[in-house]
C-alpha cells in the first residue's frame, strides 16, 4: 500500500533519491579545507538549528529573567540600595580617616621640624558667637596646657590658648579682632605686628613707609611677642598701600584656612621670658 502510494508520487520519490545521492556523495567528498563535505553540510545545517534553538531558549530565558523572574527584584533592589548607602557612608568614613591620617602626618612632620615640645589637639568646637573667632580644642590643663601657649598647624600659625580648661581649652584664632602677633616680612626682615581684623584677613601694622614691602611677600612670626615661636608662617601680603601716617597699610592673607581646622599642635614650650621660675606655681 505504501509502495503503491509512493509510486503515485514520483516527484517525492525523485526528491528522496536525489537527497540520498547528495548525502552519499557528500559523505565521500572533502571540502577544500580537508573536511568531509557531509560533515561540513551536516554541521553547518545543524549549527543553524542549534543557533535557532539557542535563540528560542535565549528569548525564553530573557523573557523569564526580564519579566516573570522579577518578583524578588524589588526586595533585592531595596537591599542593594541599603548596601550602597552603607558603603557610601563607609567610604566617606574611610576618606575622612585618610584625611585625618594625612593631617596627623603633617602635624607630626611639623612637630619634628619645629623641635618644640608640642602636643596634638583636635578642634572639637567653634566659637559660640560670630563676633569672636575662637575654637575649642580637646586638650586642657591636665595635658599641660597653659594660657598664651601658641597653637600652630602645618599651614601656619593658628592662635593662642586663652582659656585652658581641665580637659579642653579655648583658642583665640589669629584672625580674631583682639588677636595679635609679632611678625616680620621674611624677604626683607622688616618687623611689624599682625592683628586680626575680624573678617578673616589680617593687617600688618607698624611697617614704615620706607620699608621694602611687596605683594606676595611671606610674613612669619618674629617671636618678640613671647607667645609664638619665631619663624612660623602667618600668611602672605595681599595688598600694600601707603598709609596716612608713616606706616604702610598692609593686608595679609593667612595661610591657615581657619574654617577647616581639625587638628592642631599646641606649643608647650613657653618663651624664656615667660618660663616660670623653678619651685613657683
Amino acid at each position, binding site marked *: 500500500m505504501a509502495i503503491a502510494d*509512493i*509510486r503515485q508520487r*514520483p516527484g517525492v*520519490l*525523485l526528491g528522496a*533519491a*536525489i537527497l*540520498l*545521492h*547528495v548525502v*552519499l*556523495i557528500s559523505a*565521500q*567528498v572533502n571540502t*577544500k579545507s580537508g573536511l568531509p*563535505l557531509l560533515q561540513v553540510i551536516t554541521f553547518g545545517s545543524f549549527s543553524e538549528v542549534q543557533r535557532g534553538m539557542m535563540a528560542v531558549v535565549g528569548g525564553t530565558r530573557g523573557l523569564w529573567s526580564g519579566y516573570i523572574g522579577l518578583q524578588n527584584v524589588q526586595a533585592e533592589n531595596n537591599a542593594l540600595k541599603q548596601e550602597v548607602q552603607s558603603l557610601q557612608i563607609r567610604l566617606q568614613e574611610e576618606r575622612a580617616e585618610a584625611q585625618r591620617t594625612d593631617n596627623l602626618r603633617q602635624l607630626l612632620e611639623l612637630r619634628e621640624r619645629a623641635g618644640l615640645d608640642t602636643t596634638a589637639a583636635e578642634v572639637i568646637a567653634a566659637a559660640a558667637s560670630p563676633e569672636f573667632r575662637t575654637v575649642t580644642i580637646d586638650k586642657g590643663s591636665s595635658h599641660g596646657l597653659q594660657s598664651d601657649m601658641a597653637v600652630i598647624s602645618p599651614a601656619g600659625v593658628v592662635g593662642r590658648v586663652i582659656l585652658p580648661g581641665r580637659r579642653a581649652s579655648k583658642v583665640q584664632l589669629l584672625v580674631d579682632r583682639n588677636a595679635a602677633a609679632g611678625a616680620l616680612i621674611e624677604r626683607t626682615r622688616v618687623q611689624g605686628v599682625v592683628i586680626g581684623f575680624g573678617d578673616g584677613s589680617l593687617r600688618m601694622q607698624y611697617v614704615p613707609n620706607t620699608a621694602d614691602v611687596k605683594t606676595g611677600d611671606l610674613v612669619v612670626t618674629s617671636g618678640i611677642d613671647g607667645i609664638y615661636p619665631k619663624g612660623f608662617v602667618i600668611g602672605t601680603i595681599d595688598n600694600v598701600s601707603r598709609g596716612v601716617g608713616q606706616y604702610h597699610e598692609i593686608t595679609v592673607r593667612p595661610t591657615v584656612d581657619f574654617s577647616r581646622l581639625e587638628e592642631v599642635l599646641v606649643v608647650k614650650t613657653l618663651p624664656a621670658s615667660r618660663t616660670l621660675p623653678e619651685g613657683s606655681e
Partner: protein
Amino acid sequence: MRSAVALAAIFVALALQTTLAGLVIRGTAALDLVLIVVVYIALKSGPVTGLLAGTVAGLIQDALSNPILGIGGLAKTMVGFLAGLLATQFILNGPLPRFVLIVMATALHAAIFMGLYVLLDLRQFPDPIPAVVGQAIGNGFVGVVGFQLLEWIPGFVDRRRAGRFLKR
C-alpha cells in the same frame, strides 16, 4: 517479474560495458550501455521504475568504476526519471524520437556527471563536448537498434512458434 528482468538487463549491460571499457574516445566511454538500458526501462515502465533502475544501475556502475559513489547514480536517476516522464507525455515508439531521446539522455547524464565532478573539484574534463557528442550518437544508434531488436525478438519467436504449429 518485470523487476527481475530489469535487474537482469542492467547486469548484462554492466557486463558488456566492462568488456567494452577499452573503447574510449577522449577519456569518455564511447558507449554507455547501462544508460541505454535505463532509458529503455524508463520508456517501457514509466518514471518511477526508470528512476529506480537508474539509481540501482548508477550506483552499481559507480561502485565498479567511479571514485565517488553516487554521482553516476544521481545522473542515471535523473535520466531514468525524466525519460520515463517523457515517455508518458509523448509517443516515443519511432526510431527517430528514441534516437533523440537517447541523445538528450546522454547529454543530460554527461552534464550532471561531469558537472558534479567539476563542481566538487574532483576531476577535470577538458574539451568534453566532442566526447559527449560522440557518446550520444553512439548511444543513440546502439539504443535504437537494440530497442528494435528487443521489441522484434518476441514477435519473431511468436511467429516461428505459430509457423511450426501451422506446419503440423
